[in-house]
Each structure stands twice: as C-alpha cells, then as structure tokens.
C-alpha cells in the first residue's frame, strides 16, 4: 500500500521536480545528457526573467484579474447557491441546469462576440475587460459547487436561528456563512486557479505586454527561431508560487468537520 502511494505521489511530483531542476540548469547544459540530480545551480533563467522580460508585470496582472474575479464571484455565487439549495421556487431545476449548461460552452465559441462587446465598451486591454469575461465561466462553477455544499448543510441550524428570532438573511449571515467557510474557501481557491490558468480570453482580450497575464506571457516567450525553455520553465515555477501560497494559507480553513458538534452526539 505504501509502495503504491509512493509511486503515485512520485508520478505526480516528478514533472514538477524536473521543471524545478531544469529551471536552475544553464541553457547550454539543458540539452546535454540531463541528470536527475542538479550538478550546478544557475540563476541565469531567473535573472533573464526579471531583468530583461520584466516578468513581475504579468504576475501582477494575473493576481489582479484572478483576485478580483474571485472577490466578485464568491459573495454573489454564495447568495445564488443558498437560494438554489434552500428556497422553494418554480423552475429551480431548470435554472440549475442552465447554470451548468453555461459553464459547458466551449470558450472559443464566445470569444468573438465577447471581443466585439468589450471593444464597444472600450474595455479591451483593461483589467475589467478580463474580469467580466472570467465571471462567465467562474460564476457557474462556483454556484454549482456551493449549491452542493449548502444542500448538505444541516437545515436545523438555520431553523434554530429562525426560531431564535433571526430573519432568514441574518441566519445566513451569522450561522450559515461562518460555518460554510471551508466550502467558500475551497470554491475560492478553485475559482482563483481557473482564472490564474486561463489562457484563451487573456490572449484574445489583451493587446500588449503591459496587460498580459502569466500564461499569455509565458506562451509568448517563444521567438521566431527558438524556444527559451529555461526561461519558460523558470516562469512556470514563478507562476506556481502564488498558488502554493494560497493553498497553504487557506488549507487551515479547508478542514472538514468544522460543523462537528452541531448535531448528533
């Protein structure tokens, strides 16, 4: 069993490790017989990344776009999802199916209309010009995830609060949302990751390097005659760091069993 686990973990982590090793290997050595253990560490690629390519700009752009999208998505999606999970109203199933259907659309099919729309609004090559389109795919995802989460939330807790005199909205705010923190945190992380990794919209709706997001910037590293693999890999490592930090920070909120002790003995 332990051997199986080790194999699986190894298979998952090896590409990351390889990426890390390669990003510290000089361009010249990169295509020689590669060794699994780094022999000499070189910061050449990282220097190139930050000195000549100004990689902090795309990192900042990505943080702004993914961050704001997440900030908008979570409260709105939480309210929608709570209503879908709890309130009885006509056409609920249809609405949920529609939400899911929207997230199933191939992105490429809406690039052109979105481009025209954003051009009319004068939002091309701006942050809102990316946040708004990102809402189209992150909102359905978040609503869908949170609806499932709220459905499994013990109903008696809200009912107890309502008998205690709290309005439904107050019960939502003071009882449900604090306890839903794990669900909200995981949804926030997923939303952020989706936006962080998004490529097509970012490529289509940004016009210059000052608004490129990380995936776009890395993709455009390749020149006409060569691909600077070392810098691409170093960029990928840098792009991974905020995600790792985010997961580590929120990890403590994603502990299951925060609702332990609420019900049953």
């Amino acid at each position, binding site marked *: 069993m332990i051997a199986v686990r080790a194999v699986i973990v190894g298979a998952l982590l090896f590409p990351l490790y390889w990426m890390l090793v390669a990003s510290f290997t000089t361009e010249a050595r990169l295509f020689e017989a590669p060794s699994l253990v780094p022999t000499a560490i070189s910061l050449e690629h990282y220097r190139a990344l930050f000195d000549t390519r100004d990689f902090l700009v795309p990192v900042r752009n990505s943080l702004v776009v993914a961050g704001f999208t997440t900030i908008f998505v979570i409260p709105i999606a939480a309210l929608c999802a709570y209503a879908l999970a709890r309130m009885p109203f006509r056409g609920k199933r249809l609405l949920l199916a529609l939400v899911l259907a929207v997230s199933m659309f191939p992105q490429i099919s809406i690039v052109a209309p979105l481009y025209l729309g954003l051009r009319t609004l004068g939002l091309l090559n701006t942050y809102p010009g990316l946040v708004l389109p990102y809402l189209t795919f992150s909102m359905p995802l978040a609503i869908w995830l949170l609806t499932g989460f709220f459905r499994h939330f013990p109903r008696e807790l809200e009912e107890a*609060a309502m*008998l*205690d*005199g*709290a309005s439904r909205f107050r019960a939502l705010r003071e009882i449900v949302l604090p306890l839903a923190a794990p669900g909200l945190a995981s949804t926030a992380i997923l939303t952020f990751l989706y936006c962080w990794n998004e490529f097509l919209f970012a490529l289509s709706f940004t016009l210059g390097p000052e608004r490129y997001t990380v995936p776009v910037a890395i993709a455009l590293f390749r020149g006409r005659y060569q691909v600077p693999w070392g810098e691409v890999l170093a960029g990928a490592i840098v792009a991974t760091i905020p995600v790792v930090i985010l997961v580590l920070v929120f990890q403590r909120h994603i502990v299951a069993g925060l*609702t332990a*002790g*609420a019900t*049953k*003995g």
Partner: protein
Amino acid sequence: MAAIALEQIAKTYPNGHIAVKGVTLEVRDGEFMVLVGPSGCGKSTLLRLIAGLETPESGRIRLNDDDVTLLGPQQRDLAMVFQSYALYPHMTVRDNLAYGLRVRRTDSGAIAARISAVAEALELETLLDRRPSQLSGGQRQRVALGRAMVREPKAFLFDEPLSNLDPSLRAQARAELLRLHRRLQTTIVYVTHDQEEAMTLADRVAVMRAGSIEQVGPPLEVYSRPANTFVARFIGSPPMNLLTVPPDGLSDPRDAIIGVRPHDVRLGKGEPFRASVDLVEPRGHDAVVHLSLYDAKPSALLAVVSAPKAPLPDTEVRVGFRPDSMHFFDPASGARVNP
C-alpha cells in the same frame, strides 16, 4: 404562556406526500402535550407547523387568541429543541444561549442575568466557555434545553430530544424534563415515537397515525380505554393481544375483536382455555410468555406473569382473561365498542 389551537390543519409536501390530514387539536395553557406515533405518522410535521417552519395548506393555528397561521417562526416566540440539538458549532455555550436574546435586542445586563440563571438551573456554569464539539451528548442536550429556556418563550416544542441519549441518561433526562415542566408551568408540545416516553411525560397524549390523530387523552385513559385497535396496540408494552376469532366459551355476543393486555392474561390450572408455551422471555421481576392459543385466531398470545410463575417452554398451560379487562373493537372499523 400560551394555549395552542390547531383547526383542521392539513399539509401536503411538494412531492405529493400527505403528511397531515385535517388535524384539530387544542393544547391548553401550561399543558405537557405529547404527540406520539410510528415514524411517518406526521407528528414531526405537525410540530414544524406549530413552529412556523412549515406553512399549512389549509386550516388555522392560533396562539392564545392570535391567528399565527401565516407568521414566520421569528414572530411566534416559541422555542424548539431539535432531535439533533442544532447547537451553533462556531459559538461557545454562552453565545449559543445568548443568541436568541441578542437577536431580540435584549440589553446585555439582562442577557448575562438570564444566562447565569439558566446555567445554574441546568448545571451548565462550568461549560459556558466551551464549544458544542467539546461537550458530551447529555451536556449538548442540556445546552439545547437551556437555549430554549433562556428566552422564556410562550411554549416549548420538543422534537424527539432524548432519542440521541443512551438509555440511562434518557431516563434521567426524562425526570429532569418533568421537574422542569412542573417548575416553569410552560406549555410543551413534545414529539416522540416512544410510547413509554409519552406515557411517563404527558399530561395528555395525542396518538397519531398516517397524518391523523387517533385519540387524545390523559395517558392512563388512553391506556385503559384505547379508542381503536391501532391505539390499543401502539400504547402499552408488550402490545395488546387482539383476537379476531376468540376460543369457544369466551362470551362474545357482539362478534367483536377481543383485546386483552398481556398483563391481564392469567395462567393457572383452573383457567378455561388451552395453550402451548412457545417461548419465555425473562425480564427480571416478570417474564413475557409467548403462547399458542388453541382454537383462536390469531393463535399467538402474549402474557406477562411474575417471574416465579413463568411456565417452561414446550409445555401446555391453561389460560384465562380477567373478565373486566377485556376490550371490544368493531371488526370492520376497529373502533372501540364497549363503553
């Protein structure tokens, strides 16, 4: 303090399940009313209707003289103790108790005073700064009770509050509830599927089946004069024997179903009927004897006899019924026919 009146209350769930069919029930001010019945009989729905967590399709609910049928749970000033206790897990015991008072904008001095009074009454003082997850089942149950008491509501609603406790704690909690009711004199509506709990706690019980109330009355009256065969078998343990075809010689001018409680079955040499002993379950001071009564339908008959008098299995005994203990029911409707 409140009287609760239900008039022709009906509730059908969106999935078409008819949970409550036209129930009329009056709970008097200060009364301990127990709704009892098998699972799915609508007793919990009825409690939720009183609480305002469900809205009835038809009928009216009155608290004292106010029609509250369409009011939300927030406006009814009732307190409910849930089967799962539903304590707020992210709050300390103190905050759990205070929540209802804070929502109602009670000033903080009064909140502190009431919490300490309730905490003293329920022996929660040492637990006030703990969270629900750090409490045992019995302690959680007391906190849930305290959260209901602290608001001094018009009435308490209990939804099987003891079913998650282990048996020894349950008996203790039952006694505490009775003492509490005697002290507070607040109206209580209490739901349980346990007939013994109903018998021990209630001023009056309402026995429910399939969304309707079969009989309402003081526990002893329901026990000694069940209104129909369902109530006869549901209340009392082991359940009443019902003989559709009694053995010859049992006077039965009315061609009725005859009901006899196991405690009223006598075993002895001089008794009129013959039966064989299938099984004997000793229970300490008495024993449940499973008998096969000859020439009767159904032949299975239960008797409770004191332990030393219990017969041996696979023997033959003579059986008789105490004449004044027999219940007669109409074979078609199941309704009681003797006065």
